[in-house]
């Protein structure tokens, strides 16, 4: 597969690409390993948290659900901060990412010490702050380490490794609980050790200060400030991409709503609800690399809206259910996973194409934050529609809006894509 690809993809524009190229740079594999290990660690905790609160501590977990809104807002801002800090001083992505991974790793042993709802909520909030901090620098490192023509594949490999970790985490956690009944402390301790290992892999195997791309001018002071971050939106390519990501984010149904819709509209018994995210993750895992490669071939900006087209088909299957039960559920989950595989890493790769290396982290954070806030707003609106008119009309409205936005994104991104091609050719 790799040989065929290397013949069909155009040669890279950068001068570093002369001679031998590996399928995915070592930096990307190292960052993928860090994400895999870290996700095992964090998903272990997530998987057992309800059980721990209810049967371990005797708490009713509804008590601290209110922290949720705070997480959502704060997480988005922290991501911007992480991207901005990573860009400063030329290239400090590795240090900022290490701080983010380290912060989350420290939270796991803290869970051994706190036993009340609000304190546990606070520790989980710090954990998420670490996640927000590291996301943009990590994606910036992936994009900076990879030749432009290979970015879709690189992000695909990273996301596949990340998802593998997320799928393994709960398995490890429940295996531990089987070894030691009620051994929640053992789960937290092991989770902490695994998280520490992730930080260590980052420190040892991800090159730091690898500088910006060869030949690029060092950023001058004013290019690095907050004003410069907003100034990034003057880049027409980034502005269009961010606009499309926001529009599409507003009209996609959030995961938890989608799983509820699937369960109710396709008549799946309620107790199978927790299995649905596994289906999406499995499809994402399998399709992330092939669709990343496809993005490199046909264009990231073309695949991103096509990914939403796949989701649109999924909504259609829910609106007009062809069959009930698993036979109806599986195609929707596969399409949902394919949607993530065609958009998640692909959006980062597409954004990287438009960004100067010195502002890669800030720019990626800007796109990611815009998308996240749009999705959060979209889910509030969708919740209101659902309450007012029920599932059918809410879903039909979301489907219609997504169709319009997808069509618009196809036009907007194709136009800016061809302009970019013209710019780089000249």
């Amino acid at each position, binding site marked *: 597969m790799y040989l065929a690809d290397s013949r069909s993809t155009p040669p890279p524009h950068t001068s570093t690409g002369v001679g031998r190229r590996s399928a995915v740079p070592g930096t990307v594999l190292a960052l993928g390993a860090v994400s895999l290990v870290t996700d095992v660690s964090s998903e272990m905790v*997530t998987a057992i*948290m*309800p*059980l721990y609160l*209810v*049967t371990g501590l*005797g708490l*009713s*977990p*509804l*008590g*601290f*659900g209110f*922290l*949720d809104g705070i997480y*959502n807002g704060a997480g988005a801002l922290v991501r911007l901060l992480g991207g901005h800090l990573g860009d400063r001083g030329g290239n400090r992505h590795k240090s900022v990412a290490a701080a983010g991974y380290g912060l989350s790793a420290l939270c796991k042993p803290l869970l051994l010490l706190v036993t*009340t*709802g*609000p*304190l546990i909520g606070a520790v*989980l909030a710090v954990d998420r702050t670490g996640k927000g901090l590291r996301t943009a620098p990590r994606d910036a490192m992936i994009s900076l380490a990879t030749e432009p023509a290979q970015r879709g594949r690189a992000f695909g490999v990273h996301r596949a490794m990340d998802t593998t970790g997320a799928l393994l985490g*709960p*398995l490890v956690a*429940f295996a*531990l*609980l*089987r*070894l*030691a009944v*009620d*051994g929640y*402390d*053992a789960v937290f*301790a*092991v989770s902490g*050790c*695994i998280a*520490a*290992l992730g930080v*260590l*892999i980052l420190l*040892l*195997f991800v090159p730091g200060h690898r500088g910006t791309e060869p030949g690029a001018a060092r950023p001058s002071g004013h290019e690095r400030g907050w004003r410069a971050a907003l100034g990034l939106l003057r880049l027409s390519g980034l502005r269009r991409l961010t606009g499309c990501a926001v529009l599409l984010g507003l009209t996609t149904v*959030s*995961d*938890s709503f989608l799983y*509820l819709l699937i369960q109710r509209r396709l008549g799946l*018994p*309620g*107790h199978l*609800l*927790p299995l649905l*995210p596994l289906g999406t993750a499995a499809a994402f895992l399998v399709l992330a690399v092939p669709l990343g490669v496809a993005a490199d071939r046909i264009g990231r900006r073309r695949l991103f809206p096509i990914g939403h087209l796949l989701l649109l088909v999924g909504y259609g299957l829910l609106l007009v259910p062809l069959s009930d039960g698993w036979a109806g559920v599986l195609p929707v989950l596969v399409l949902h996973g394919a949607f993530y595989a065609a958009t998640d890493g692909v959006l980062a790769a597409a954004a990287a194409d438009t960004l100067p290396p010195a502002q890669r982290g800030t720019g990626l954070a800007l796109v990611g934050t815009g998308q996240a806030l749009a999705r*959060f707003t979209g*889910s*509030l609106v969708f*919740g209101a529609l*659902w*309450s*007012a008119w029920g599932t059918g009309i809410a879903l039909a409205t979301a489907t219609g809006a997504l169709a319009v936005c997808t069509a618009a994104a196809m036009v907007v991104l194709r136009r800016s894509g061809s302009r970019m091609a013209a710019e780089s050719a000249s």
Partner: protein
Amino acid sequence: MTRKSRILALLTAVLVLGSIAAFAVHHAAERADRRGRPQPGGPAVADGRVSLTAPAGAGRRMIFRSTAYGPHRDELASVPAEQPGGQRATSGVKCLRFFAAGGTGICLRGAQGPLRNGYRAVVLDERLNEQRSYPLAGVPSRARVSPSGHLVAWTVFVKGDSYGATAFSTRTSILDTRTWKLQDNLEEYDLKVDGHGYRSLDVNVWGVTFSDDDHFYATVSTRGQTYLAAGDVGAATLTTVHSNVECPSLSPDGTRVAYKRRVPGLPADSPWRLNVLDLRTMTETATAEHSNIDDQAVWATDTTLVYARPGKFGTDLWTVPADGSGTPKQLASAALAPAFIG
């Protein structure tokens, strides 16, 4: 650092972290083992027969989940209601949550699957034989049976059923043991809040307490507010009748509801106090229990309440008069989820 020394550093770290992890798991497994051995000073426990109907002249009994260390940990156990600290007769039936009335028992228990932990609601007959069992969507929380034994209800916590990934929500079901008809999710009932029809996705229902085979009370929460709601099983309706009520428990004479009330100004991790609401006058009485109570209380008689408080071995059962007088007294250690029979 050369590549070799980096790999060496990683291997060293794997060994060190692996040892720490192995020690933590070993320690937890040892502790789990210890729980299988009786604890000095713990309640006396012996194999016995537990029945959900008291034979004539045998007197009232309390049946509950015994969390005392030893081979019968987490099994349903029975003691005379007059001697709650006496020797426990254990049944061999394990439950996380339990309740019984009218010869019917409901037992919410864990059911380990090949990939993930599952839970089941098991309906028990008077000899604790399994009649039917239903898979649950989440972690068991509350269980109740109607006085006749015909209806059972349970509540579980479900994760990922909400706007955000960390929020939890509840799902409450009612099962008719005569027809085995299951109302899987009470959120589908028609809800009236303050007299007006109300629909919102963030509605949660939990903690059913039955008055008869048609009517019950439960907690309804939406937009950060909790309510006492009166439910009608046949009409599938819920109507709020009071606010700031969680985990209601109807007195045997049907006149009062004991519940946990969120008291403003208390610490966020212990906001609940045990109160009693008179349904005719709608007056609230604070009980003499002044600590945080996160449980659905049970009426031992028309005048006394029983509820769980965190203890040395899981939870202990405490009792307090329902009229606000007296002081709380410990009823039994290492016990949870009581039901009074006979």
